[in-house]
C-alpha cells in the first residue's frame, strides 16, 4: 500500500517538472470551453430553451452541461493507452514485469497521480470560471452524493476500457490509433459534445447497449437533476454491471496477452 501511495506521489511530482505543459493545456481547455458554449448559444438562436427527448432543455442547462463535461474529462481522463503502447513498443514493459508488483495497479497509480495533479491545477480554475462567470449552482445534497459516486464509477469504467485497448498491444504492438478511435466513440456515444438528449431514437437505443454513456452522460444528468432518484440508482447499478463485466474481460485478456507477449529489443 505504501508502495502504491509513493508511486502515486512520484507521478504527481513528475508533472510539476513540466510546468509550461500544464499552463498550455489549461489554456487549451478553457478556450475549448468557450468555443463550445458559443456554438450552443448560436444554435439556440436566442430562444430560452428547446424540446428534447427528455423534455425542455434551457440554454443555461446546456452551458452547465458543457462545463461539467469539460470538468469530468479532467477528473477521469487518462493516457493509459499511449503509456502501454510506449512500454510494449520499446520493451520497457519487461522492467515492470520483473518486479513483484501488479501491473494494473502500477498503471492505476500513475494515472491517479496525474489526475490528482490535473484536479489541483486545471479543475480549480474551471470551477472558478463555472461559478463566477456562468453562475453555476450546486445540486441537492442527495444528487451531489450520487454524482460523486457515479463519477468514481466513470473513472474506473474509463480506466478499464483504456486498459483493455492497451492490452491489445500484446498482439498488435501498435495501439495508439485505438486511443483516437476510443476518444471519438466516447465523444459520440458518451455524449461529451452533444448530449444524448438530442439524439434520434435509433442512436439512443444503440447507446443503451454500450458502456460509454455511463462515463459522461450519466454523472452529468445526475448533477443537473434530470433523472429521478429511481432512475439514478438504476444507472449506478448499470455502471457496476459494466465495471464487473469489463473487469472479467480485462483479466482474461491479460492472462492470454501476457503469454503471447514479445519483449522488443536486445
Amino acid at each position, binding site marked *: 500500500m*505504501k*508502495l502504491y501511495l*509513493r*508511486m502515486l506521489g*512520484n507521478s504527481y*511530482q*513528475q508533472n510539476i*517538472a513540466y510546468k509550461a505543459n500544464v499552463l498550455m493545456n489549461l489554456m487549451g481547455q478553457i478556450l475549448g470551453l468557450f468555443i463550445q458554449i458559443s456554438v450552443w448559444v448560436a444554435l439556440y438562436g436566442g430562444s430560452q430553451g428547446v424540446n428534447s427527448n427528455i423534455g425542455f432543455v434551457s440554454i443555461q442547462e446546456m452551458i452547465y452541461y458543457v462545463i461539467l463535461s469539460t470538468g469530468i474529462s479532467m477528473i477521469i481522463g487518462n493516457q493509459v493507452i499511449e503509456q502501454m503502447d510506449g512500454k510494449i513498443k520499446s*520493451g*520497457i514493459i*519487461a*522492467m515492470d*514485469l*520483473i*518486479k*513483484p*508488483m*501488479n501491473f494494473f495497479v502500477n498503471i492505476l497509480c500513475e494515472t491517479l497521480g496525474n489526475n490528482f495533479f490535473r484536479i489541483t491545477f486545471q479543475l480549480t480554475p474551471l470551477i472558478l470560471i463555472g461559478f463566477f462567470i456562468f453562475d453555476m449552482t450546486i445540486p441537492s445534497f442527495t444528487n451531489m452524493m450520487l454524482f460523486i459516486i457515479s463519477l468514481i464509477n466513470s473513472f474506473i469504467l474509463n480506466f478499464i476500457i483504456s486498459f483493455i485497448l492497451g492490452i491489445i498491444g500484446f498482439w498488435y504492438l501498435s495501439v495508439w490509433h485505438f486511443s483516437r478511435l476510443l476518444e471519438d466513440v466516447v465523444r459520440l456515444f458518451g455524449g461529451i459534445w452533444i448530449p444524448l438528449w438530442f439524439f434520434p431514437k435509433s442512436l439512443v437505443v444503440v447507446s443503451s447497449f454500450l458502456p460509454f454513456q455511463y462515463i459522461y452522460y450519466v454523472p452529468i444528468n445526475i448533477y443537473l437533476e434530470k433523472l429521478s432518484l429511481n432512475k439514478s440508482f438504476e444507472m449506478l447499478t448499470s455502471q457496476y454491471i459494466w465495471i464487473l463485466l469489463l473487469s472479467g474481460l480485462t483479466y482474461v485478456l491479460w492472462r492470454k496477452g*501476457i*503469454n*503471447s*507477449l*514479445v*519483449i522488443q*529489443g*536486445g
Partner: protein
Amino acid sequence: MSLISVNNLTKQFQRPIRQEGFTGAVKDLFHRQYEYKTAVNDISFQINQGEIVGYLGPNGAGKSTTIKMMVGILVPTAGSVTVNELIPYKNRKIHAKNIGVVFGQRTQLWWDIPVTESLLLMKYMYKIPNDQYRKNIELFSDILDLHEFKNTAVRQLSLGQRMRADLCAALLHDPKILFLDEPTIGLDVVVKEKIREFIKEINKVRQTTVVLTTHDMDDVEKLCSRVIVIDHGQIMYDGNISHLKDKYGSDEIITIEPEHNHDLISLRDKLLSLNVMDTKIKDLKLQITYNKGDINSMQILSKIMSESSIIDFTIQPCEIDEVIRRMYTENSLKGKLKI
C-alpha cells in the same frame, strides 16, 4: 536438486514478412505471411547454487531470449524452466522476489526521480525490513561509490553511474539468483573492474548464484567458474573455462630471442624433428606454435637450450577471446556447409 533447471527449452517467434514497396504494403494488409524463427532450440542445462555461469554466444544466438524465459517475462514455446522450484512465468510475482535482474541496455529505476527515491521504492516493493535495507545500502554504496550521485535524477546519470545504481537496486532484497544481461556493455575499464569485484564479492559472501551474458571475455575470465556457449539457439559447450581452452584452443606460442642471429635458421630446422605445428622467423625472433596436447613448453625449451644459448623467451597462452572466436566461426562454417 539444482537451483535452475532448463529442460528441452524451445522458443519460437512469429514474424510477419513485409513485402517491398507500396503495393507490397497493400498486399500485406489483406494477406499477411509469417515466418517462424527458432531463437532457442531444445536446450537443457542445470545450474547449482553459488555458481557464476557465463552465458555466451554471438549476437542473435538466443542468449537474451533464454534469460527472459528464466526471469519469467517470456513464455516458452516448448520445454520447461524451473527456477528455485517455481515456473517463472506462472508465478511471476513470487519468482520476482527470489531474483535480481539487470539488463545492461535498460534501467529498472524510475526515470524522473533521484536514485535514493528509486531505491526507497524498491524497499517498499520488495518489502525489505529496515535494518536489512540500511545495511545493504551502506555496503553497496561503499563498494559501488553511489554517494557521489545518489541525489541525482536517474535520467541525468552517466551510463556507468546508472549501471551501478541498477546493480544496487537489483540486490537490495538479497535475491538468491542474479541475472545480468550484458552488465558491462559500454562501460570504461575502471567501472567494469568495480562491477566485477562487486559481483564476485556478493557471490562469495552471500552464495548468490549469478547468470550473466556478456561479449567481454575479461568478464568471463575474471568471474565465471563455468561457461555455457550457445549459437543458433543450441548449446555448443557447457563446462569450465580451462576445459574449453583444452578442447578448442590448446595452441600456445613460444617466442625465442637467441644470442646469435645466425642460430635462427639452424634452430628452426632442428625443431622440425619435434612435434610442433609451425615455426616462423620474425624480427630476429623465432616463433613456435604448438599444441599443448602434443608437446609441452619445457620439452621445446630444453631442446633449444641444448642447441644454443638464448637471451629471452616469452610464452603466450591461448586467450579465451581467441577460443570463443574460433568456436563461433567454426560453427558458422559448419552451418553454411549444411545448407
